[in-house]
């Protein structure tokens, strides 16, 4: 098992003091190398679920296991390092830091995992996503599609075991959507990386074997 969630609960406290339950997941799991797409209505808690899995957001209760390690029991600093080493991220937009070139953006992710060299690896990854000729461009000089490809390269730089992608193709045209999707899926299968991808697109979801509807396993309204 690459990912196991058990009895995970997360609620936000609204400014007026009332509790707003977002997540209540009894059980959710991903096999090693499995590719799963997550769909669900807007505001349902998909992004929150990804944040809980990566340790960016702490669950109120329950356990989150990645590669057999329980994230909920870790100190924050250890969780951060764990995230750097084992979990890759691709967001919907603005994944990159403007101050850094494409190559540096990839290397930045590596440096937080304690890898201060890695130029060759970063270059190779960018070549893999078809940006070998754009290594020293700043994000502002790249198209949105290219930016997303850099983000894909960066998410794989530390050889993660789990890749979380939050609507990675929502802001690109159809042609780029296909390209990026293929890049992500191929790269994950090559490296046996588990993939959990959020999407609103039926077309994207249709290409996956396993499609999870958040509402099917997340029952925030039930039992406190």
């Amino acid at each position: 098992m690459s990912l196991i969630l058990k009895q995970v609960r997360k609620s936000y406290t609204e400014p007026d003091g009332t509790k707003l339950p977002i997540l209540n997941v009894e059980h959710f799991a991903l096999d090693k190398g499995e590719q799963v797409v997550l769909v669900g209505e807007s505001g349902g808690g998909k992004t929150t679920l990804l944040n809980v899995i990566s340790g960016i957001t702490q669950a109120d209760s329950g356990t989150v296991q990645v590669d057999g390690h329980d994230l909920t029991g870790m100190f924050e600093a250890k969780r951060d390092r764990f995230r750097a080493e084992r979990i890759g991220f691709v967001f919907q937009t603005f994944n990159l830091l403007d101050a850094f070139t494409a190559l540096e953006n990839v290397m930045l992710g590596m440096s937080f995992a304690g890898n201060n060299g890695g130029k060759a690896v970063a270059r190779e990854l960018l070549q893999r996503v078809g940006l070998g000729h754009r290594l020293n461009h700043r994000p502002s000089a790249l198209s949105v599609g290219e930016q997303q490809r850099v983000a894909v390269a960066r998410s794989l730089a530390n050889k993660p075991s789990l890749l979380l992608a939050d609507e990675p193709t929502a802001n690109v045209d159809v042609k780029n959507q296909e390209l990026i999707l293929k890049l992500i899926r191929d790269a994950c299968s090559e490296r046996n990386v588990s993939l959990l991808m959020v999407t609103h697109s039926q077309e994207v979801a249709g290409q996956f074997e396993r499609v999870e509807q958040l509402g099917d396993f997340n029952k925030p309204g039930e039992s406190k």
Partner: protein
Amino acid sequence: MNLVTIAWKSIRQRALASSLTALSVALGVTLMVTVLVMHSVIFKTFNQPATGYDLIVGAKGSPLQLVLNTIFHLGKPVENIPYLYYKELKENPRIEAAIPLALGDTTQQGGFRIMGTIPEFFGVEYMPDKKFGVYKGGRYLSKPFDAVIGASVAKANNWGIGSTFKPVHGVDDGSGEAHVHDEEFTVVGVLGRTGTPNDKGVFVHLDGFYMIEGHEKPADEAYAKAVATAKLLGKEPPPPPKPQADDAHDDDDEHGHHHHHHGPIPDEQKEVTAVLIRTKSPIVTPQLQGFINDQPQAQAVSPIQQISLLFSTFIDNVQLMLLVLITMIILVSGVGIFVSIYNSMSDRKREIAIMRALGARRGSVFSIILAESILLCVGGGILGVLLGHGLVFAAAPYVEAKSGIVMNPWAFEWIELVLIPALIVLASLVGMVPGMTAYRTDVAKALAN
């Protein structure tokens, strides 16, 4: 990439704001370095020439005036003391060297001060371990109408060996009423540059100085003074002077100049303005000073003490005020850096959140912001140090030409070593608040925007 590299790239991203804030620090530091170097130049200018002699003996009066006049050629010459007193003093066993200076005349060209002294003057170090030297082909004083000139005099008047001049009595105020003596002196040596007021001095043989018409004290005045002094000392008054035979003789020097001076004046009528003293050991200096000061004829002052006093009462306070002011300027620059970084923080929430999502710890993003602040402050500081010394470097030739002060642009002051750590402390304080903002960033929230 390490945290400092990451910080550096972020600074570069905001190049204009970054360079402006760093520049404001740099200018503050430039000011500080300039003031420090200026202070040390002024201090050296005043202190170094004062280190050559243990005591200066002159007529009773203001000790500071005696020092300023004798060593720095500032102000009108003080009263004179009898030559006989100098002769007596020279025999004091505590004294290693006693060099008389007779002042009162200047050169007609350039108004440089003429000092009558003995050849031994050039044999004594004018500063510890610094001996006078003459340019090739020159020599020191040996004949009465020999003159040795300082480097600045040679340059300003375009004088060299063989140049001749006539002394002007007193300081020529340009009114044309100053009395030009008839006696003519010949330059026999040009001194190497010393960086002291000696560079502006014209040294003539004391014997020649006394041969100048009017340089002898009238016999009756000299006698009256001697009697008065003897009375104060409780001694027998000296015998009255014998009426002088007018045995003026002609004396052709090697250039064939004709000096129509009169015969040698008796010692009783000679006077000196000051005596420069080198004692045999520092231990005996205060004893000798006390001994001289207890007697009515003269006072002995320590030049170093007088200069230190002048500095501590006046110049040090000015410097302190300037430094306080400049410190405030640098603090204001620090506030500028704070504002610049703090303002950028709201734009950078997402950047910071991305770094955290990539696995950066809270401490790391805090350190990156702190490093930015330190890089700006210290970078500005180093630039300021370089600018400051560069300024001194650029100004050095002009200052040297104008005042003879040799400034070493690479002479670092100890305060400059404190400056960089102090800037790091300032930068840390400045970076603390935005650093904490980065530390506290709510990653999920920032990513959602």
